[in-house]
């Protein structure tokens, strides 16, 4: 092989894996579509518990794709996945506790 002037410090560039790149763009497409759906629902559905539940569900879908694919957590070891996921139980408890508390404060005020 002839020695190229502009690549003299770039030995061993591995060519891109088309499948891999395609997967990244698929994840991006899913995130974009889910956001578009949320946007659409915000204007077509009446506000209420059902709409809020759908929003939360779609948010979790987006969070899953960002953490699993973009942050690559899905492809890490099981032990690592669990050490990141299990501590978020505290957050779930915190949501329950504080939202109930907020409702109680409302009841006491009004």
């Amino acid at each position, binding site marked *: 092989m002839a020695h190229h002037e502009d690549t003299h*410090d*770039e030995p*061993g*560039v*591995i*060519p*891109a894996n088309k499948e*891999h*790149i395609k997967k*990244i*763009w698929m*994840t*991006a497409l899913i*995130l*974009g579509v889910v*956001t578009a759906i*949320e*946007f659409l629902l*915000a*204007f077509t559905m009446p*506000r209420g518990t059902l709409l*809020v539940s759908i*929003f*939360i569900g*779609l*948010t979790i879908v*987006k*969070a899953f794709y*960002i*953490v699993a*694919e*973009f*942050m690559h957590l899905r492809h*890490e*070891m099981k*032990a*690592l996945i669990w*050490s*990141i996921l299990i*501590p*978020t139980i*505290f*957050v779930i408890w*915190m*949501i329950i506790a*504080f*939202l109930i*508390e*907020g*409702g109680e*404060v*409302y009841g006491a*005020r*009004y």
Partner: protein
Amino acid sequence: MATEVSLKNPKRSIWDGGQSPFKASYGKLMMWFFLLSDAFTFSAFLIGYGYIRFSNPAFQGSLEDYAPSQSVWPVPEMVFDAVPFLHVHAPLVFVGIMTFILIMSSVTMVLAVEAGHRMDRAAVTKYLLWTIVGGATFLGCQAWEWSHFIHGTENGLTLADGTVIHGANLAVNEYGPQLFADLFFFITGFHGTHVLSGVILLMIIFYHTAVGTYHRRGHYEMVEKVGLYWHFVDLVWVFVFTFFYLV
């Protein structure tokens, strides 16, 4: 030779050191645990928002009759309905654009990490630059959003005693209860600070990629670590978008 064998294979668990039980480097692991702790901080902010919102009266009735009041929690799409350069009622459009920008910058970040695995310095440089552009654009959008929120609407809010309030800050708020404005500044501000530090980190690794530091080092792990941080910032925005703007 039996001694030698036992020295080479001492009875130790994989947690006793000398290897990576998670098959991830120290730096990446610590980034994960930092992000976990940061997730708790953001959760506390957003749950605080939920708590305060639940302890205030919600707006009842149809959106056509919506009028901001300091005693009723505002409907976000009636507050965030402005777009730069246009005088129209376009609820959530600008925030939608900001969300799109941040998701796209996350995509270019993954592409940079992917290129790093392949030791493709030119591609890493290119995608990092796009990510910086995306992050900086997002920050610019947020600056506009804040500025609009602070200056307020033309009519403002007329209080019972006749005084008119324009916009919001930490002392007054024309859109709703004072805490709504405070939480807006704290939550989007804290997220914006994360984006700003992310952009600074990106600039540093962009420089090191461009001058070939990581190439000489033989791996682009630093790009991966900053990538994790950058995706986390995107992740937080997904939650802020839902709980501050949509719900």
